[in-house]
């Protein structure tokens, strides 16, 4: 187990290294320059800045400096927001993105898993059909349509909900629902498929024949196997929710990382782009790792493999 963990972490480091290299090359291939602006900046100022950000050095040297700084936990100064460190920007705005992603995931789980179990148990009934049509709607309607609809439909009628803003935990609710709905739909479909598979197994028949209560059979025996595909999906989905919530952040004016990333990309802020990409890369690696660990904990067959 420990060996697997260490080798997986090693793999993760390789992935992150590749990610850093790819992004490093990609941003420098982009035409345009982080230091030139629409405003005319005097030549000597640009030269000074270029030296400050080490952009006057050869690319290989820049890469070496960058890797060295990362090893010390320093993501460098932002090139478009003067006087601010990339790490500072991330520390300041990432919590909102993380909270939004986590709440969205929780909502997706709370809706998706019960819906999936229910429609598997009542296969081909109207509950099943209704859930699956609802899931299809959740997958087909983009978040930037659901978001404004929820904002205007619910927030204007319920007094304690606001259309936009990020003050107290109640403000998390609408953006998180918007974010989590599509994921909830996927989880419902996956859970249904997994449950249908396990409900047909012999050991479920045995459990029923022993006279166990239906709730024990479903929740203790069938769910354990049936939830596996959903858990395998949750890891990557969580990372996608946290790193892909730009749109929701725009709709509901959440002060998250998304805006900074887009502005950084447009302003060619090399350090900011790289910092955000590395952060998301680490997040994806960790989420996949956690999902695998959870799978191994649930499914003994996976524990002794690899």
């Amino acid at each position, binding site marked *: 187990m420990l060996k697997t963990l260490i080798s997986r972490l090693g*793999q*993760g480091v*390789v*992935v992150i290294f*590749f*990610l850093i290299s*790819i*992004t490093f090359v*990609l*941003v420098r*291939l*982009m*035409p*345009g320059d982080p230091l030139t602006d629409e405003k005319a900046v005097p030549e000597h100022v640009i030269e000074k800045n270029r030296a400050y950000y080490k952009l006057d050095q050869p690319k290989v040297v820049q890469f070496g400096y960058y890797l060295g700084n990362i090893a010390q936990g320093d993501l460098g100064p932002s090139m478009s927001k003067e006087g601010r460190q990339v790490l500072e920007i991330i520390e300041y705005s990432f919590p909102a993105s993380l909270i939004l992603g986590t709440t969205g995931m929780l909502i997706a789980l709370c809706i998706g898993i019960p819906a999936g179990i229910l429609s598997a148990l009542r*296969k*081909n009934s109207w509950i099943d059909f209704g859930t699956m049509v609802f899931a*299809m*709607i959740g*997958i*087909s*309607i*983009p*978040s*930037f*349509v659901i978001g*404004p609809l929820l904002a*205007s439909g619910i927030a204007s009628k319920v007094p304690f909900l606001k259309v936009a803003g990020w003050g107290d935990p109640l403000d998390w609710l609408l953006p998180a629902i918007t974010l989590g709905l599509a994921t909830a739909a996927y989880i419902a479909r996956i859970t*249904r*498929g997994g449950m*249908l598979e396990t409900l047909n197994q012999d050991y479920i028949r045995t459990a029923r024949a022993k006279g166990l209560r239906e709730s024990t059979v479903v929740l203790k025996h069938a769910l354990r196997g049936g939830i596996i595909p959903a858990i395998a999906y949750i890891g990557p989905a969580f*990372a*996608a929710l946290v*790193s*892909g919530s*730009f*749109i929701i952040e*725009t*709709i509901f004016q959440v002060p998250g990382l998304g805006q900074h*990333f*887009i502005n950084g*990309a*447009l302003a060619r802020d090399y350090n900011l*782009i790289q910092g*955000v*990409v590395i952060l*998301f*890369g680490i997040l*994806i*690696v960790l989420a*996949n790792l956690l999902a695998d660990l959870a799978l191994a904990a649930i499914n003994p067959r996976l524990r002794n493999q690899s």
Partner: protein
Amino acid sequence: MSTSHSLYQDAWLRLRRNSMAIVSLGILTVIFLLCFALPFIGSIGTPENSGFEHWFKDPNHQDLNKTFLPASAEHWLGTDQSGRDIFARLLYGGQISLLVGLVATSFSLIIGISYGSIAGYVGGRTDALMMRFVDILYGLPFLVLVILFSLLISEYMESLTTLLRDDWGWNAGFVTRFTNLIPLFVAIGSLGWLTMARMARAQTLNIKKQEYVEAAVSLGLSHRQILTRHILPNMMGPIIVYATLTVPGFILFEASLSYLGLGVSSPNSSWGILLKDGANYMETAPQLLIIPSVLFSITLFALNFLGDGLRDALDPKAAKD
């Protein structure tokens, strides 16, 4: 040859029994014809003599005296905030959205199938190395990379535009429209092939062990012949199904990028841009948001249902229940 023929005939029979999938197919056909045929008919000839000018207005024609008009015989779905005809904008935007879905899917099909089937067919260390590379790409933040990638390509598109327009004498409007789209196609397609490659590899590994491939080997067929004549045709079922399900994904993706202001840009428009514009006027003119979202959702709905139906038809073993 006759066996593969009957496989698709079988699939068609199974698909025809699935009423949801057939209805979806019909709806998609109508939407396709509307988006691609009608603007074409409308643009034939000059407005004075074609007789079709009422069918399809110029989607970029602004008239600030006619903003937010309700639906009428003149403007079938009314006009938007700049007095443009919503119906025309809807079809014009649909062209882009559908094109993005189809072209990006074709890109990822071509890359994914070649990559995956070669990895699976060659096997051994090459396979391991190629799939590790896919694993690494899987670990990258997709949205973020597509944004970077499309920004990168779009900057180089300017030189392509001047080349085609000034040196080769292509139609300026067409060139701008066309070069505007390439970054998006390439960015989405070149990063969206990963799952396709994994599927193609798994299929190839499976088929490689079949007797008919052994027979082909003993008959002395070349690797290329075995791959193109035996392995590729036999793995198309699941691949087609997956491709159908990625089309709505890519359409949605383009819409999200356009919503963020990073997708297609003027003079192009897409459903994503219409939805974005509509959301801005949600309070004063909700039809601007409602009309495109209804059409958009119906299209995605139909594509998803068709994909599900195709899965049940082409791949009975993987059917949901």
